[in-house]
């Protein structure tokens, strides 16, 4: 319901929205990124970061700093922020916040399933999982001896159960390529999230549906481009596209039959919002496509903060933080590998 949110939103979610906006003010700015890009060593980076919100997390690290440590600690900060918000949230905000992390949960579950299939050690697998996607019963997944048990366990213990039952039966788990399984799950998750947001209504529904449609479309384009020349059939490809977004349904038809990048470009240019993305690329080149997508996403995420009284700000904040951590990882790796000339290739400035 438009307009009446201003009356009641602050009762339940006012505090958390304020927190999120405070966090957003702590995101690194272009000036910070410029400083970081000028660093010569990882210790310089650590010094610069100590002036930002990451300071307390990095200051206890011993001196031969490694890029993975930087990324780990920054992710830790993100997890702390998230957990703080989650504890304070009430329904339906708490469900919304949980939905944000289902993507990582899917990655973790798929990782453990693959690892168990190939008989790897459970503890190692658990260490490699993303912290945002951990849930209590994740350790039980690794106990499974074969695929049948795994399916049973997954159905029972995880919050991802409905996605599994919708799209995969137990036989499929054996043969199906891991990537296809991951993408099928992710598709189900996106659609579920979309429905949930629609149910919430109001500004949340509007803003989130815009953001989620962009995500779905971007995934569709990526799947198309990455499956050109592989053994993925057109029907399989179509099954991986979500059933919402700008491309649904006609764009999907066209994308499913594309065989090379220029055809994909042709399809995308029919949709005005995406024309600007492809205009940045020259013909035949697809390396910069991912960066162009990230830039577009960041633009839309920042726009979400312009409105008040909706849950989209939480989603936007999480995604922006992830982008910032990606930027930090890129800068640290460039500095560590002595490739400073390539730094500006992939850093996406948020402000």
């Amino acid at each position, binding site marked *: 319901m438009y307009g009446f949110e201003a009356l009641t939103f602050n009762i339940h979610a006012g505090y958390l929205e304020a927190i999120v906006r405070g966090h957003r003010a702590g995101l690194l700015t272009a000036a910070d990124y410029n400083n970081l890009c000028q660093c010569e060593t990882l210790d310089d980076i650590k010094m610069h970061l100590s002036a930002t919100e990451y300071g307390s997390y990095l200051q206890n690290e011993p001196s031969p700093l490694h890029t993975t440590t930087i990324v780990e600690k920054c992710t830790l900060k993100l997890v702390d922020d998230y957990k703080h918000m989650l504890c304070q949230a009430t329904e339906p905000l708490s469900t919304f916040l949980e939905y944000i992390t289902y993507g990582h949960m899917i*990655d973790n579950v798929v990782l453990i399933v693959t690892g168990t299939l*190939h008989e790897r050690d459970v503890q190692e697998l658990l260490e490699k999982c993303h912290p945002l996607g951990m849930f209590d019963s994740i350790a039980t997944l690794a106990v499974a001896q074969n695929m049948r048990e795994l399916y049973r366990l997954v159905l029972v213990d995880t919050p991802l159960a409905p996605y599994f039952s919708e799209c995969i039966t137990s036989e499929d788990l054996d043969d199906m390529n*891991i990537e296809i399984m991951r993408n099928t799950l992710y598709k189900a998750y996106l659609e579920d999230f979309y429905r949930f947001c629609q149910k919430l209504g109001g500004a949340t529904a509007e803003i989130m549906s815009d953001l989620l449609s962009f995500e779905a479309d971007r995934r569709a384009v990526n799947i198309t481009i990455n*499956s050109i020349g592989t053994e*993925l059939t057109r029907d399989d490809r179509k099954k991986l596209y979500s059933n919402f977004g700008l491309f649904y349904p006609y764009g999907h038809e066209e994308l499913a039959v594309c065989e090379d990048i220029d055809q994909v470009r042709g399809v995308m240019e029919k949709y005005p919002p995406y024309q600007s993305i492809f205009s940045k690329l020259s013909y035949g080149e697809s390396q910069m496509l991912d960066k162009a997508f990230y830039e577009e996403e960041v633009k839309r995420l920042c726009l979400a903060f312009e409105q008040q009284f909706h849950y989209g700000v939480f989603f936007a904040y999480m995604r922006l933080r992830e982008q910032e951590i990606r930027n930090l990882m890129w800068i640290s790796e*460039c500095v560590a590998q002595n490739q400073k000339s390539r730094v500006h290739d*992939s850093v996406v400035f948020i402000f």
Partner: protein
Amino acid sequence: MSGQSQRLNVVPTVTMLGAMKARLVGATRGHALLKKKSDALTVQFRQILKKIVSTKESMGEIMKTSSFALTEVKYVAGDSIKHSVLENVKNASLKVRSKQENIAGVKLPKFEYFTEGETKNDLTGLARGGQQVQQCRAAYVKAIEVLVELASLQTSFLTLDEAIKTTNRRVNALENVVKPRLENTIIYIKAELDELEREDFFRLKKIQGYKKRAIEKQVASAKQFAEEQSAEKVSLQQGISISSAHNLLSAAAHKDEDIIF
């Protein structure tokens, strides 16, 4: 090692001399052949050294590029992509085979890599990062190529080094120890033989001398006897045997008791 080479302890006979000469000829030929082998190996060695230097330089470049490709993958597809790739692997799809190559008689090992089995990871990063993953894969395959080549070059380098050292050791041994020893032995044998010959000769001469003197003595005594005989004959003709006359006189010199006067 003694400063001057010794000689072998052999019985200095003519057959031995023949045997030693044959050995010397063998040693000389062996020395020439080994020297040629050493030269050929050294040429190969230098070539391999040049190739190693250039390969190492390119390896530095290539490793840098491939790590950077990995960073790009991590950027686009998230940090956890390397875990999902690692967990999805059962066997290596790129393997290395070794075979032997024969260079100037030295067996050098050579490595080559081959792909075995289809990799199931074609669809990695389907939703995002797929392109970067494939590029990173190509970069690392190239890196492996260079590394395998570098490995075979370095092993051949080491093996050749060993071989050259051994060959040179043999050449030097032949040149400085075996041949002088054989030569000395031959000289010794010849010397001994000469000495034996000289001894023989000397002995011969001495015996000749003895014989000559013996003959002379015989001749002298024969002459004397002949003279005496002729004298006897002459005296007999005159009625007295000189010898008996002599005997009478001499007997008269002895006092016979029976004789009064």
